[in-house]
């Protein structure tokens, strides 16, 4: 199954009709519109999921505002400069991960935060952008497809931060960082033979992984395989969220009228499990609408990748789109019971600050790649 993305020759006149303001701000209209609709939808769901707590909605709105600011700022940066920033950003990110392990704050049993005195943040967030940037930098330095040596180099550059993050332990983010590196390699033209080899290797390594996992991570996998085995612990999440979604039916119980969500049966309902609120209150129609929005954003990102003027831009834009997809898929898969429970939020809808900024910054990078294309010709 192959899909043809609309690849335009460079210098086509597609920008002529776009608003001059958007052009001057280096913003991509389709992405911008899609993101605004998605965030608006997210706030409406959050209002219901938080039991109509305007305070939560307001706080989320502020976060989104900051995140849009980051996006717009990054869109101004020329891809050539982004490319030259890649190694230092990556190096700094890895250093901060090491610092977190050495001096980080412990919150909820995991060590993820770095306290800078005036603010606390999670350095692992930076790596979600830095890893695809770094791998793109490495692969784009020579003609594609990459040599075996470069593939190995890219794998090492991905594994170092991934292992550091997994050690915190933050399995969700580690998966996203690994996905970012893998996606960059795939877009960069990793040979099919290697893809097959890696797949076989991964299957063989799965038992090893099991022994490397922490108790609670193993518990999650076991619970996933048989939710009824642990109805009090993590299985409870899965059972309750499936009841919420299933009882929503085609069109849902109506906005603000979810009984599961509001009678406290649904845990984490405004953070990781917010999709269950969508499913219960807005039904299959609501979830499909949301998924269409996500698909549109991913599709647009892949179009940007396909049209990118150089290999760096193509790999980076493609990898970021695919990471966004992994976000969506891991979260929706977890809430619907397709995948085990890993702490990955529903992008731009779940309540919470750290991932929102990184996600929007990623879209800023894509916009930069798209909107600086013409300038390259001259």
């Amino acid at each position: 199954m192959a899909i043809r993305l609309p690849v335009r020759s460079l210098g086509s006149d597609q920008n002529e009709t776009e608003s001059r303001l958007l052009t001057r701000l280096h913003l991509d209209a389709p992405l911008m519109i899609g993101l605004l609709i998605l965030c608006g939808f997210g706030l409406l769901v959050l209002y219901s999921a938080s039991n109509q707590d305007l305070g939560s909605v307001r706080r989320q709105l502020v976060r989104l505002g900051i995140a849009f600011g980051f996006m717009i700022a990054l869109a101004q940066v020329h891809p050539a400069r982004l490319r030259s920033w890649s190694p230092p950003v990556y190096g700094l990110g890895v250093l901060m991960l090491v610092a977190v392990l050495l001096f980080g704050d412990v919150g909820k049993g995991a060590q993820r935060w770095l306290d800078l005195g005036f603010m606390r943040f999670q350095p692992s967030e930076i790596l979600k952008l830095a890893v695809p940037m770094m791998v793109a930098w490495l692969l784009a330095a020579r003609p594609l497809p990459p040599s075996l040596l470069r593939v190995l180099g890219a794998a090492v550059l991905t594994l170092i931060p991934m292992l550091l993050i997994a050690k915190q332990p933050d399995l969700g983010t580690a998966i996203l960082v690994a996905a970012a590196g893998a996606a960059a390699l795939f877009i960069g033209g990793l040979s099919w033979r290697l893809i097959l080899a890696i797949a076989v290797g991964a299957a063989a390594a799965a038992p090893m992984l099991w022994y490397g996992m922490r108790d609670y991570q193993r518990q999650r996998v076991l619970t996933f395989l048989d939710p009824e085995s642990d109805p009090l612990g993590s299985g409870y999440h899965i059972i309750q969220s499936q009841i919420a979604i299933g009882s929503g039916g085609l069109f849902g119980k109506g906005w603000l009228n979810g009984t599961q969500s509001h009678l406290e049966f649904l845990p984490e309902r405004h953070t990781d499990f917010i999709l269950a609120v969508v499913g219960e209150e807005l039904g299959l129609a609501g979830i499909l609408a949301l998924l269409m929005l996500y698909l549109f954003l991913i599709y647009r990102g892949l179009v940007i990748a396909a049209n990118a003027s150089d290999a760096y831009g193509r790999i980076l834009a493609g990898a970021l789109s695919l990471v966004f997809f992994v976000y969506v898929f891991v979260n929706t898969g977890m809430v619907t019971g397709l995948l085990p429970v890993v702490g990955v939020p529903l992008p731009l809808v779940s309540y919470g600050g750290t991932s929102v900024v990184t996600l929007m910054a990623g879209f800023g990078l894509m916009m930069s790649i798209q909107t600086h294309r013409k300038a390259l010709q001259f």
Partner: protein
Amino acid sequence: MAVRASLAAAVVLLAMSLLVVRLVRLQVHQHEHYSVLSRDNRVKVQPVPPTRGLIYDARGILLADNHPSFSLEITVEKVEDLPATIEALSTMIPGDGKDLARFERLKRQRVRFEGVPLRSNLTPEEVARFSVDSYRFPGVGVRAELIRTYPKGVLTAHVLGYVGRINAEEMTRIDVSDYAGTHFIGKGGVEKAHEDALHGHVGYQQVEVNARGRVLRTLESKAPVPGRDLHLFLDAGLQQAANDALGDNRGAVVAIDPRTGGVLAMVSKPGFDPNPFVEGITQADYHALLYSPDKPLFDRAVRGQYPPGSTVKPFVGLAGLASGVVDARKTKYCPGFFQLPGQSHRYRCWRRGGHGSVALEQAVVQSCDVYFYDLAYRMGIERLQGFLGEFGFGARTGIDVAGELGGLVPSREWKERTRKQPWYPGETLIVGIGQGAFLATPLQLAAATAALANRGRFIQPRVVRAYQVPGSPEIEELPARAHPVEVGDPHHWDQVIRAMTEVVEGARGTAKRIQTSAYRIAGKTGTAQVFSVGQKESYNAARLNKEMHDHALFIAFAPVEDPRIAVAVIVENGGHGGAVAAPVARQVMDARLGGGSLLAREETADGD
């Protein structure tokens, strides 16, 4: 490689279709099934909170207990017409205005979907009356819970702290799932510092409920891990003795066992009864405590920062000996004042006529300021501050009582940072006699005295000796944390301890009134200025308000030969340390060591 982007799009679509298939299965094919499950979501998972650990004193006397109590609670989010509900409940179970005021206050601080108590301590008849009519009150229920009580009340209020209802702010700091079902959390003192051990871990039970939410049967359960009991170093008898010794004065007493660092008694007066705080004290009662001029809620023992006055002289003297600035045999002439080279300002000794020639021992015994001005001047503020830091001055001791403050040993760097002013040599002199910006808590003084009694083994003071899992015979002793204080020649300890012994046992000592035949005491009196006296004026206690009177201080340890107790006493606005604070310390030491009655002596001591 644009082909790869297209391939990726294909993968994305494939994965998304998988998801849609799953959603259709859940929301279309199994919709009926899940609708039924949702409609009577019969199976509920209820948290079972752990029982909070008990607290025992050194002799096994219970200081913090749990007793069962029934309370009427309203889950505000589930009630449609709150005023009407409260009105109806009030006719059924009469209460007073205080209950309502408390309800309003707790309602504002509540955690969403958590019950807020309207009435506490229901009688069995009241519980029965409500149960009959409970169907009329959705969102209202009777809760049986264990309420913390403090049998010794005011006596242990400051050191133990108290528990209270978890508020929204605390909710952000705790592991919410572990506190599901727990309604109380340590708000201060030992209760807060040892919260993790005392709390334990939550358990769960899976229950089947009927449509009205009543539990029909328990399907499965996982027992909670109860909180651990605490065994303290604190001795309730000694605590009582310290409390009685202070009488009606404002002040604090801290007594430490030098051998363990264990706090034997820690009293701050006035105190308060912690019991009303547990279930929520009324606004009026709380304000009465909060705004009382005597500040009963203020824990003077660990938060009261006072100029230590002359009680630091033994430590400053040690600093001089350790650094080689002074020699215990050499004397310094005290004409009644000290002048910095090339300056006319006279730094006065408390004795206007001067002490004449004094060596270290007499300088400590007679508390000669000039000797210590000279010592501090020659030593310099950096070295002095560093040495005092070894004894725990200027930083929190890290005791397991929440809310401790660290006092202050001023320094060049501190002054430039906070006041944007340079350091003047004269300020070094003032630090040498424990005045000026120099601040210490009674706890710091007691810990430093214990380290001196130990000849340099500084043990971090602690209140809790051990943890015990309830019902288990095993007792987990908590480790002590200690560091050595180096003074070079070990004889330096003897020299300073001999001087402190003279303060009590000597004929000219400032605390000789507390001599006893039962054991020998080493001590040092002190007076902390509240009101500064001008260069030409003289201090006249009779002319000043009581609030302006000096604070009386005393540090001591005993027996000199084998110290088993180190005490620090401060009596706010008490005047002279020897007259007021020393007898308090003596009573506490008597209670610990057993001694004759305080020798009735005429007031002969002069100086502070």
